[in-house]
């Protein structure tokens, strides 16, 4: 009997709150699909597979975090539905059901919802994960080698655990709700819910204004100070103050908005006293008042989700661009001697000793990179002295940059030759500066124009050119080809400085795969042979650097999409449930309007305005926060030499718009259905 009741209720709930069910299904599907990533590795190239296993482990942790967030939102949504069902639950008790039996009904309902949404979600997730495999392959710049339908028991188990906990928490909350309230409150709860929130209008206006001002000041502070990259305690503190201002401002704004909006619109008489504008305004106002808290939370979560998604995407693009810039050579072999002065290492003969004939691998060039020790200690950095000379301030993010690497002009020309570029010439007493970071170039060029002198070793040198060299700047393959500055000096000057590292750059002649294979194992052999003499030995091939790069971008993209998606569906689901409840609460009002002779066009127009505003208001606030933060983040990312952020947000924003807009459309359709049936139903009198 109880089970039958639970089943009946479920059918009604699934019908009225399909959005809630949909969200559970999507949640399960996304959790499952993203956690199949370790299994996906089996279908891809070996090294990618290994990377994917690591990515999978990181995603496990993230999944737990997202489960907590999603759990909170689901419990909130569940409580919201429970509040609306108080009367029904009271009725059961009035009819003589014991509290325990009502609990059984509720627990059964939760179980049924859980079972259905879990089953459907896993099925959907299994399908999505097949598609995701190809997306993963693209993301990691490889191809699917042998495809067959796959299913991950691990992902299933993890999803089961997360949602199991969420559903248990829901049941506990249901139980608490039922225990806490008295029967009389349950029965009269419908009346209580109708109570309207009145506010003192001047206070509301003041709150909204204070909220706006706080947000404005916080934006201004963030744009002025940027993110606390310097790591000093005071800048950290200032950043926290900014964050608190944004949060407090957001809530104050939403709390005051309703009153302020009503006050403003009631004064626009021509607008207010026409059509259903009055009704729409009042409906939204009464609603924004009671839902200010959730609107604020949603605005902030949307802010976080949008920022995370777009930043993730753009960081990936920046990393990809940097990686491509960082590997001009086919391979680089480098060694950092422990004591470059007393015990220099002849890298070429060491490589030969390790059994690799470089002439068979391709063309190569050797360079010794020296170091200015005073620069490393940070006492008088070149950038600081440039700033003193020109009076320009050091660009954001470059405050702690060191220009300590020095290469002799003959070594540098050898590298240029390897890259097929013309050699540069240098007189005695002159230097050249290599720099390829857009944000720094202008600043450095100004200093060079003014004849910025550099003291290297015992010699003071003057610039040979008034601009930096930016065409061949990378001295060895690295994952980030970003160079704020390297001095090229006459051979005699370089010779006086201690060695920082030695490098051999190679350009392959012949197939990359074979040559990569020829260099395989060289790193270990060199490390063995030079044990005690070298601090660090590295053999990087363009292939391996590229693979590392794509694995980190892949990971970041994954996390960004995953976080963004889960947060967005959670927020959208809450908004949807609120809007649907509001629509059914107000269905009596809509019927009255219809009976008073209000056309369907006006009624549904009003409903549409309400639903759209409820979705768009927090979105606008969240987006404003996000744009401000992204602007600052963009500065940071572009400081790394990559500045085309906005155009690469499209995928993230597109996905976001699809999900959020989809929920909006679905909510309006369902609210439309609720109101339509209310309007169509004839009022029955006794």
């Amino acid at each position, binding site marked *: 009997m109880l089970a039958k009741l639970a089943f009946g209720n479920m059918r009604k709930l699934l019908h009225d709150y399909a959005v809630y069910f949909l969200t559970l299904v999507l949640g399960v599907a996304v959790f499952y699909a993203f956690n199949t990533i370790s299994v996906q590795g089996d279908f891809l190239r070996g090294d990618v597979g290994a990377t994917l296993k690591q990515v999978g482990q990181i995603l496990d942790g993230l999944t737990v975090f997202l489960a907590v967030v999603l759990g909170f939102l689901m419990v909130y949504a569940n409580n919201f539905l429970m509040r609306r069902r108080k009367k029904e639950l009271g009725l059961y008790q009035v009819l003589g059901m014991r509290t325990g039996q009502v609990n059984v009904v509720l627990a059964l309902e939760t179980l049924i919802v859980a079972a259905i949404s879990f089953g459907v979600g896993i099925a959907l997730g299994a399908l999505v994960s097949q598609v995701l495999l190809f997306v993963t392959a693209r993301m990691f710049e490889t191809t699917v080698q042998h495809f067959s339908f796959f299913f991950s028991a691990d992902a299933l188990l993890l999803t089961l655990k997360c949602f199991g906990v969420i559903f248990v928490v829901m049941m506990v909350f249901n139980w608490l709700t039922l225990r806490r309230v008295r029967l009389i409150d349950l029965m009269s709860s419908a009346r209580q819910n109708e109570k309207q929130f009145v506010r003192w209008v001047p206070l509301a206006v003041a709150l909204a204004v204070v909220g706006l001002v706080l947000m404005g000041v916080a934006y201004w502070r963030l744009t002025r100070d940027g993110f606390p990259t310097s790591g000093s305690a005071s800048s950290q503190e200032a950043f926290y103050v900014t964050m608190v201002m944004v949060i407090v401002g957001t809530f104050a704004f939403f709390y005051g908005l309703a009153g302020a909006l009503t006050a403003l619109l009631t004064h626009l008489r021509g607008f207010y006293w026409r059509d259903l504008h*009055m009704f729409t305004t009042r409906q939204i106002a009464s609603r924004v008042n009671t839902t200010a808290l959730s609107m604020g939370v949603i605005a902030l979560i949307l802010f976080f989700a949008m920022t995370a998604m777009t930043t993730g995407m753009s960081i990936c693009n920046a990393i990809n661009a940097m990686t491509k810039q960082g590997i001009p050579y086919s391979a680089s072999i480098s060694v950092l001697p422990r004591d470059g002065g007393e015990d220099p290492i002849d890298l070429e003969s060491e490589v030969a000793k390790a059994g690799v004939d470089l002439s068979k691998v391709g063309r190569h060039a050797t360079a010794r990179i020296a170091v200015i020790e005073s620069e490393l200690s940070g006492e008088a950095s070149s950038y600081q002295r440039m700033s003193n000379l020109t009076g320009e301030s050091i660009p954001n993010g470059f405050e702690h940059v060191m220009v300590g690497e020095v290469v002799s002009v003959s070594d540098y020309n050898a590298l240029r030759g390897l890259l097929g570029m013309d050699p540069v010439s240098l007189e005695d007493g002159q230097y050249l500066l290599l720099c390829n970071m857009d944000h720094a170039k202008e600043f450095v060029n100004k200093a060079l124009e003014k004849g910025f002198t550099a003291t290297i070793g015992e010699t003071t040198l003057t610039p040979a050119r008034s601009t930096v060299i930016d065409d061949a700047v990378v001295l060895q393959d690295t994952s980030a080809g970003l160079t704020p500055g390297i001095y090229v000096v006459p051979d005699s000057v370089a010779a006086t400085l201690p060695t920082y590292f030695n490098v051999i750059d190679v350009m392959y002649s012949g197939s990359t795969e074979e040559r990569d294979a020829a260099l395989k194992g060289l790193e270990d052999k060199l490390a063995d042979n030079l044990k005690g003499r070298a601090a660090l030995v590295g053999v990087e091939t363009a292939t391996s650097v590229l693979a590392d790069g794509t694995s980190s971008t892949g990971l970041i993209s994954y996390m960004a999409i995953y976080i963004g998606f889960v947060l967005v569906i959670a927020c959208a689901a809450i908004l949807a449930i609120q809007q649907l409840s509001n629509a059914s609460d107000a269905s009596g009002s809509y019927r009255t309007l219809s009976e*008073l002779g209000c056309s369907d066009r006006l009624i549904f127009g009003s409903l549409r305005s309400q639903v759209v505003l409820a979705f768009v208001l927090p979105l606008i606030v969240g987006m404003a926060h996000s744009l401000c933060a992204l602007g600052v983040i963009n500065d940071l990312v572009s400081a790394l030499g990559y500045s085309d952020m906005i155009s690469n947000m499209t995928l993230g924003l597109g996905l976001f718009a699809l999900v959020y807009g989809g929920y909006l459309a679905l909510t309006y359709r369902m609210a439309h259905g609720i109101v339509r049936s209310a309007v169509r139903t004839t009022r029955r*009198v006794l």
Partner: protein
Amino acid sequence: MARHMQSNPTSAVPTAATSVLEVRDVTKTYGGHGVTTHALNGINLTIAAGEFVALMGPSGSGKSTLLNCIATIDAPTSGTIMLGGTDVSRISRSRLADFRREKLGFIFQDSNLLDSLTARENIALPLTIGRVPAVQIETDVVSAAASLGIEEVLDKYSYQMSGGQRQRVAAARALVTNPQLVLADEPTGALDSKNAKLLLESLESMNQSRGATVLMVTHDETAASYCRRVLFIRDGRVFTELDRGSDTRHAFFERIMQVVAVQGGVDDAR
């Protein structure tokens, strides 16, 4: 229904100039597949302009169905309902809302005020929907409120008012457009006797001072005794009717009681 047939309701055949409402041979059948209920059974009635008429009958007598049909919320199975010279069954769906707003006023048992709006805004609602200029809305609302004695609650919300005040606000809302016919469905049903008296006196004076035509469905003989004429309906047709004539309200009440007793519907009606 096709739109071209009734796009111009004024072209319909006009009836006697003084009659606001004419119900002719109206039937309404619910159900089908063997089990049918005849809610209205060929009912006829006429209400002249400026009348204050009560419609009485036991539960299931068909009075609510009739009211719904007159209100254009429901459609009769057969017969015609002429309202202000217009056959309501021939009004297109798209014009129905306008028709309802312009020609009819409603007062329900529960006042059905929109709880997010103040009394003033509730009363103004039919005017704003009809796009009356804001300045005129203001004066119309105040005059309607004055005729019902509710000026002091104009800026209150429905939950800040008493049940009686709410009902009078609803009456003001029904009146504000100066409709041809005000339909009141058990307007005193949810009120205590003191508030019921207040409301009925308001309706009576509204009928007299503004010349509003009112059709009130009620169970309550006391409420009916405020009217000028009482129609008794039973089994879907008019069973008998009483005219107050020059009787005092008390005398009229006694006559109504007699009819109700004879009708044997006392138990049903309570």
